[in-house]
């Protein structure tokens, strides 16, 4: 039961943290809760759909279908998070100003919403499809085991959701004047982490070279499966033994999105 809880917790953590950050980042946008829920629901539906056809996907491209699919989903999510951040960079000041007028003042932000709803859906889809496959495995186990594993999975999901909510609640304590700077950085780091994962799956499929691997090894200092390692993996894309290619993609995404944000900001100010 504990094992099942842990697996589902790990899979749901990243999606929950993404939702928590995005919910805070879009605070002043009208009807954002509905849109976020829509994104999450679309992601769950997508995860079930993907799990159903996952085996056929996996067989494609000489057995590299799984990796190419995951890489595509990751690349789209990075693009959406980047788009959101660039949009926020040019509209953030205006949003912060309006958000200060207590609660009711909301701005229209259709572009930003489309981007984040899609990013949420893609993240839930990616993490969720693995969970669905795990649950399919559970469903074929004997009755008593199945019940225990089912309860464990629900506990894991609840714990993942709680982590996302805690992050959201924590972000709401950040003064509005600084909130969008903080969420902007968090989203930038999420996007960079996903870019690193993009490289990892393509290395696994032998599409990209690993270059130096591992570039460093901090597995004795902070193992990937430690509590802090898991949290930092979900938030920043931390890995104890990353390859050089992954690190390269991580920083390439970080720097290029940051520069695009800066440009959008200076255009808005001019």
């Amino acid at each position, binding site marked *: 039961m504990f*094992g099942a809880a842990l*697996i589902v917790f790990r899979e749901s953590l990243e999606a929950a943290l993404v939702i928590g950050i995005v919910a805070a980042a879009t605070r002043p946008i009208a009807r954002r809760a509905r849109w976020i829920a829509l994104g999450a629901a679309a992601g769950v539906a997508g995860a079930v759909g993907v799990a159903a056809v*996952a*085996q056929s996907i*996996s067989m494609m491209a*000489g*057995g*590299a279908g*799984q*990796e190419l699919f995951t890489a595509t989903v990751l690349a789209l999510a990075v693009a959406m998070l980047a788009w959101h951040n660039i949009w926020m960079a040019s509209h953030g000041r205006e949003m912060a100003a309006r958000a200060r007028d207590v609660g009711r003042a909301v701005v229209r932000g259709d572009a930003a919403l489309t981007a984040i709803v899609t990013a949420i859906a893609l993240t839930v889809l990616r993490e969720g499809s*693995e969970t669905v*496959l*795990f649950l*399919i*495995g559970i469903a*074929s*186990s004997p009755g008593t085991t199945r019940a225990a594993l089912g309860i464990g999975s629900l506990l894991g999901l609840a714990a993942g959701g709680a982590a996302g909510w805690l992050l959201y609640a924590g972000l709401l304590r950040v003064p509005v004047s600084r909130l969008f700077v903080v969420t902007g950085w968090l989203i930038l780091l999420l996007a960079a982490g996903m870019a690193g994962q993009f490289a*990892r799956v393509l*290395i*696994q*499929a*032998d*599409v*990209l*070279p*690993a270059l130096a*691997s*591992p570039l460093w090894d901090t*597995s004795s200092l902070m*193992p*990937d*499966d430690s509590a802090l390692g898991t949290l930092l993996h979900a938030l920043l894309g931390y*890995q*104890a*033994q*990353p*390859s050089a290619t992954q690190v390269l993609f991580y920083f390439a995404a970080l720097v290029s999105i940051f520069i695009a944000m800066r440009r959008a900001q200076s255009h808005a100010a001019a």
Partner: protein
Amino acid sequence: MAMKVVLLMLSLSGPVLAAEPEFAIQLHEHRFTPSEVKVPAGVKVKLVIDNQDATPEEFDSFALNREKIVFANSKAIVFIGPLKPGRYEFIGEFNRQTANGAVLAE
């Protein structure tokens, strides 16, 4: 554009240069056989994981930096390395009590 060309070349080079040593691992009743896979160090290696169980499994290794779903009664390919000599543990995440093993690079 340049990036696209590079990616295309890399993806084409995969099958053309497919001379990596290949190692088979069977998964039966949520156990890996062999549970210790000896591979040469310093070269890229192809692992073929054959899941003979009726449930899907996730081949997972932090040390190898790999993670792949292996479907019920199916095979999956995972490229690893070039590895430094050493022991790299892996698990089947969905059945970690029984499904565990290691790659020994030497």
